[in-house]
């Protein structure tokens, strides 16, 4: 197992190097340069040239890439010029916020999705199945940013139950209940689509397992139905549900970009959108590499979990 993990980690290195090259080239090729973005109306060629020199953007492309890569390997991601602070500090702050949001959403959609799928499968074609299938389809079909805006209108503006946006209250907040208050709407809006997908796939996985011989045997032995479903069938179905969870985790992470914009959550998705619009090259590059690395690590973790769960999958 240790060797397997090590092998996977080593194979991730070329992937990450490739990502650094791609993101660097994209940022170099997109039209519009940071100096123009900073200077706005005052971007005369003279001013742009001087500012580019001050920002160190006048060096040849290849040289700039290796300077950036070299610095990054020593933990120096450079300084963001749109925020005037070290890129890594900003990324770590922001990534923490995104992890909280995406993590809670992921737990929500996993639990709700699997539960809905299991109940549907156990009551195939019954009322519960139909009601859940209907709700799930709505969840899958509504774009998450629209759902988010509607939730704000209803729960924050009209009913005033929950705060509109942000992560903590400006005054008198900062504790866990305050965080939960701010988290309820964005986490639910972000979880909606993934819950639907997981529910649909859990349902079919469960239905397949429930038709198998060992379930009939369990029932024949007189095992209580609840234990048949949650003990025997769900455990077997998890082998096909877990990879779906892994994929959905990626979707939740990328879906966080819209949700962070709508709810002004101070996460890494919103940071990247702002950074791209301001042509904050180092912040975009650092952010993308960081997120990509996190995603690669997560995939490795999912694969490892799967091989632990199902020994038939060769390591």
């Amino acid at each position: 197992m240790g060797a397997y993990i090590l092998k996977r980690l080593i194979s991730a290195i070329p992937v990450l190097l490739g990502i650094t090259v791609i993101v660097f080239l994209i940022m170099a090729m997109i039209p519009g340069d940071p100096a123009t973005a900073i200077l706005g109306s005052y971007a005369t060629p003279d001013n742009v040239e001087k500012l580019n020199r001050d920002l160190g953007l006048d060096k040849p492309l290849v040289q700039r890439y290796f300077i950036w890569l070299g610095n990054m390997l020593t933990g120096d991601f450079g300084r963001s010029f749109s925020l005037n602070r070290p890129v890594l500090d900003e990324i770590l702050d922001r990534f923490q916020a995104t992890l909280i949001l995406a993590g809670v959403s992921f737990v929500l959609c996993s639990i709700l999705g699997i539960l809905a799928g299991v109940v549907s499968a156990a009551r195939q074609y019954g009322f519960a199945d139909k009601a859940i299938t209907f709700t799930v389809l709505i969840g899958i079909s509504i774009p998450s940013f629209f759902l988010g805006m509607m939730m704000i209108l209803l729960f924050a503006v009209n009913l005033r139950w929950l705060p509109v946006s942000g992560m903590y209250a400006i005054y008198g907040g900062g504790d866990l209940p305050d965080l939960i208050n701010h988290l309820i709407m964005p986490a639910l809006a972000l979880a909606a689509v993934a819950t639907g997908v997981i529910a649909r796939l859990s349902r079919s996985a469960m239905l397949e397992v429930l038709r198998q011989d060992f379930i009939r045997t369990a029932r024949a032995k007189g095992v209580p139905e609840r234990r048949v479903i949650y003990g025997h069938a769900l455990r077997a179905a998890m082998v096909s549900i877990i990879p779906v969870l892994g994929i959905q985790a990626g979707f939740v992470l990328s879906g966080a970009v819209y949700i962070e914009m709508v709810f002004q959550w101070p996460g890494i998705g919103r940071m990247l959108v702002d950074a791209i619009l301001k042509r904050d090259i180092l912040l975009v590059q650092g952010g993308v590499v960081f997120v990509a690395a996190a995603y690669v690590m997560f995939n490795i973790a999912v694969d490892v979990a799967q091989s632990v769960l199902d020994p038939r999958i060769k390591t």
Partner: protein
Amino acid sequence: MSLFTLTRRTLMAAATSMLALGAVSAPLLAQTPPGVLIVGQIAEPKALDPAAVTAVNDFRILVNLYEGLVRYKPGTLEVEPQLATSWEISEDGTEYTFTLREGVTFHDGTPFDAAAVKFNFDRMLDESHPFHDTGPFPLAFFFSSVESTEVVDDLTVKFTLNAPYAPFLSNLAYPTGLLVSPAAVEANGADFGRSPVGTGPFKFAEWRSNEAVVIEKNADYWGDPAGTDAVVFRPITDANTRVAEMLAGGIDMMVEVPPTALSQFQGDDFTVVEQAGPHVWFLILNAKEGPFADKKVRQAANYAINKEAIVNDVLEGTADVAAGPTPPAFAWAYNEALDPYPYDPEKAKALLAEAGAEGADLTFFVTEGGSGMLDPISMGTAIQADLAAVGLDVKIETYEWNTFLGEVNPGLEGKADMAEMAWMTNDPDTLPYLALRTDAWPDKGGFNSGYYSNPEVDALLEEARTATDQTKRAELYQKMQEIVQEDAPWVFVANWKQNAVTSDRVENFELEPSFLLQLSSVVKN
């Protein structure tokens, strides 16, 4: 075989979780505290170092923390004393000597004196200054005419310019001219922008990244003390979310309300404030080649476009129709005699026929957004329809803002016949000097992307720059506006009125024509 039996235990669990949720939600109903003003901003500030930033969004915070030698007189764009009590300008217009206010200290307790003024300008302008590396200072060129800054005595400072430059005073009043504490720059270096120290009515309290910048009342302020204990600036980049926060009571004030959201704020709970600013929205016409090389066709475009409809229907009354290149907010330099080109499609058709340009094909660069661009896509399509009505076939090409600037700033030659543009400036000199002179064509480093050229306009602008007498300057600018309106190098479309909304708990709030946000006299109940 029930999966969810309604037992007493599940009921208890459900009730407990409902209670827990209720307890969590309870403190939410609390309003924002009295004495603390919470402002919804459009973005996270870059830094709170006046020399290092360029965005109005950042300036709105800075003018409450810092002061300059001079400032804009409230409600106008005229210059009046602030940290300087008076000044003298030499005969030839190259020496400005300021007498400084006595007994002013920075928030860190260090005295404000002539040496501090010299430090500020040397830091920005002198590449060998030990703290020049705390930049870059993108707008330092505002003071590029300054050759030297001299300490005459503790309370007297003298600037020597390399040539007479009339906009110098209004550039000093611009946020780039706000003065920082030298001791704080020495202590914090490049991080000064995150722990700012000035002389203003508020001092810096804390900056929580992406959540809030908090400033507090400065108890030792030399002037009238601030009306609130603290001001909190919250960055809320999404306009819809900003509106929702305002409606829900999460903020007390918001700036840049989207025109379509204004109707939500009618009624007694909110006050909408408006103020025309030094802004002009126009179309650059390519006067070098194609149909717009003919003045008649350029005038025809001005007649053909229904500016009233754009201002009232597309922008919902958040702008006025522009008459010429200078916005009316520069009251002293504005030519009151100018009337906007009326909407007259028949006259436009006649002019097009005279010029033989009926049915011409035109390429039109439109941006998706950008500073001061208002609602560029809707405005662009309205303009396209108006021009189609007089027989011009306009093809729109849309670009993201930074890409758009990269296309338009180097000049329209060979690419397009017209392009959208908007400017906000602090002096009537800036825009025409950078965008209408022959020496401001793109190949000479200016923004005259439509290649307009009129020697008379060039001469007037050069002369106005060196005249230190304001009445004389005003005359020159008014003459320039007349000629430029007649020559029609642009289609003059709109002057934006900035707006803001406050809740009924906020008093004494006014918007300034400078687009800055002066909050020291505001009271929050």
